[in-house]
Every structure is written in structure tokens, then in C-alpha cells.
């Protein structure tokens, strides 16, 4: 064989072996990444948010690290569902006793047009001052509801999809309560109507598990 062709063949062979070797080296690193990608392709609940608390202060999700979070959504011009939920959250805190200090309930408004920080404060004070109210710009509320998979829509009674009859509006909204861990990661949900007893039991179990 022509020596030049031989040299070329060896070079190509070496390159192929080298490439194969490199690929082999990177393979174990790629696999876990692929696994992570697969699990994060499912819905990730929660995540970073920028909102305004009921004292008017700008807050982010990081301000609540270290606490378990009990996140739920509603609006203060709601005479039926939201008072029931706030009462149940308050009762859950009472049942947790001293462990309640590790849990921070967050009431996020789906009605930023009417729910000012002061309005939220006035409303929540009637139930339990340990609950923190969060509102924000319509864009901020849109972002956080999207991250939690929360549906909400203004209903003014005009198209049969809900509302009031006095010329104002109500807000249809998802009724789930979310439990997030001290690291900000999603833990579980509680459906509307879950008793304070059951919620306190489940939260206490999560606290115990986390040490």
C-alpha cells in the first residue's frame, strides 16, 4: 500500500478511536442531564415570584426561604369562599401549635385592581395576623398564577360565567392550597374543603420528615 494512504488510514482510525473515547467519557455525564431534563419536562409548580406584601413592601420568593409555605389564592371582595378558606388556614395554624412558627401562609390576590396592600391587611387582620397577603401589578399576579397553575378570571355577570348583580365583579379562581418546602420546592397540594385537622397532620408530618 502507498505509505501516504497508510498514514492517512491510521490517522483516521486514531481520530475515530479518539472521538469514540471522548464520547465514552461524556456519556455518563449526559445521561443524568437527560434524566433531569425528563423530570423537569413535567409541570414545575411554584418558582420565583416578585410581589408586594400587605405592608407595601416589594418581596420575592427568596424572602420566605426557611419557612414552609401554605400558598392559596383569592380576593377580598369574596364573601363566601375566601373567608371560609382563611378561617380554615387560621384553624390549621392553631392546630399546629408551636410548630405553626415554621409555616407561613401566603394569601395571593387574584384581584390586584381592588386588593391594595392596605386592603389585604384590613381583610386578613379579621382572620389571623400570621397570614401574609401578597398583591402586585397585574403582570406580577399573572406570572405567579401561571407558575402555580392557578386559573383566575374576572366575572361581571354579563356572559353567564359568573359574577355579581350590582355592577361590580367577582373573580372565578382555582381553589387549591399549595404546601411548599423551606427550600422553595413544591411538596403537595390540599384540595378545597380539606379539614384543618387533616392539613395540620400532613404539614406536621412534612416538618418531621425534614428534620
Amino acid at each position, binding site marked *: 500500500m502507498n505509505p501516504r494512504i497508510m498514514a492517512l488510514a491510521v490517522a483516521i482510525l486514531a481520530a475515530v478511536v479518539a472521538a469514540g473515547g471522548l464520547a465514552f467519557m461524556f456519556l455518563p455525564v449526559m445521561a443524568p442531564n437527560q434524566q433531569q431534563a425528563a423530570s423537569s419536562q413535567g409541570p414545575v409548580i411554584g418558582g420565583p415570584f416578585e410581589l408586594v406584601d400587605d405592608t407595601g413592601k416589594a418581596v420575592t420568593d427568596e424572602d420566605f426561604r426557611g419557612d414552609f409555605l401554605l400558598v392559596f389564592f383569592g380576593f377580598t371582595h369574596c364573601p363566601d369562599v375566601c*373567608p371560609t378558606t382563611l378561617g380554615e388556614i387560621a384553624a390549621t395554624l392553631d392546630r399546629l401549635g408551636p410548630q405553626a412558627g415554621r409555616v407561613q401562609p401566603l394569601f395571593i390576590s387574584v384581584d390586584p385592581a381592588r386588593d391594595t396592600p392596605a386592603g389585604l391587611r384590613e381583610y386578613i387582620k*379579621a382572620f389571623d395576623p400570621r397570614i401574609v397577603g401578597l398583591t402586585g401589578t397585574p403582570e406580577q399576579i399573572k406570572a405567579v398564577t401561571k407558575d402555580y397553575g392557578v386559573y383566575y378570571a374576572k366575572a361581571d355577570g354579563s356572559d353567564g360565567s359568573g359574577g355579581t348583580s350590582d355592577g361590580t365583579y367577582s373573580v372565578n379562581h382555582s381553589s387549591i392550597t399549595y404546601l411548599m418546602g423551606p427550600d422553595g420546592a413544591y411538596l403537595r397540594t390540599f384540595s378545597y374543603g380539606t379539614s384543618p385537622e387533616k392539613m395540620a397532620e400532613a404539614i406536621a408530618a412534612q416538618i418531621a420528615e425534614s428534620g
Partner: protein
Amino acid sequence: MPRILIAAILVLGTAFALPATAAEFRAGDISVKDPWARASIGTSRPGAAFVGIRNAGAEADRLTGVESPVAGHADLHRTSMVDGVMKMEPSGPVAVPAGGMVMMEPGGYHIMLMKLKTPLEEGTTFPLTLTFERAGAVTVEVSVMGPGAMGGGHGHDSGD
């Protein structure tokens, strides 16, 4: 008869004359029981009142209207949950079947009190007039419970 015995009978008689059970108001075959409301929070937010209605008659009736001096506008509303989404809307007239009952409670039917003229304060009462198609109008006295109360009358509430 000894005076003390007469006095005792008078006192006991008075005690039994007072309503020993929960509040009940009647018009025709309709009786409205245990009217209660949640305390309002400020006056810019609507209030909610709840009643139990029994129709002792042989014909169905319908609750068609509500009004109260404490509210500029009062209406029948209903909360419903569809696929985890809470929705509230005007319910229209509420049917009360012959020999039947309708219980208004949180999560279901309620009387929404809008454009409040005075705050609904826990521990007070206010008048509310319910108009029925057949039985006509009946004015009840509504007891204001805590803001998160789940029941009125002779239960205890979780409002505080």
C-alpha cells in the same frame, strides 16, 4: 298562695315564653330559620347572609327577592365549584319544594349584601326581608357572627 311561689311561677313563665330554640320567622307555609350573616370587613366589600327555609305547604314556592336597609343592593347568589375552580354568580329565584327545605350555607346559596350602608358587626342584628312568590314577604332578624363563621343560630362559629 305564698308570694315567693307566685314570683317563682312568674319568673319561670317568662323564661318559657322567650324563644328557647333558634330564631324562626313565618309567612304562610314558609318558615325561615336561623338567619345569620358573617361580619363584613369594611363597607366596600359585600356581606353574606344565610338562612334555612322550610315549606310546610302542599305547593312549591320560590324565593324571588331579598332586600335590607343595610345594603344598597341585595341578591341571591350561588357558589359552585367546577373542575377545582370556584365560581360565584346570581342564582335567580330559589325553589323551595312542597314539604321541603333549602339550607343556605357557605359554599352554596347565599344572600349577597352589596353596597353596604353600614358595616355588619359581629354580635349585632339587622333586618332582612325575603319575598316569596306564594307566601309573600317575611322580615327576619339576622344575627351577625364572626367573619369566617360557618354557621349561625345555636352552633358555635369558627370566625375567630
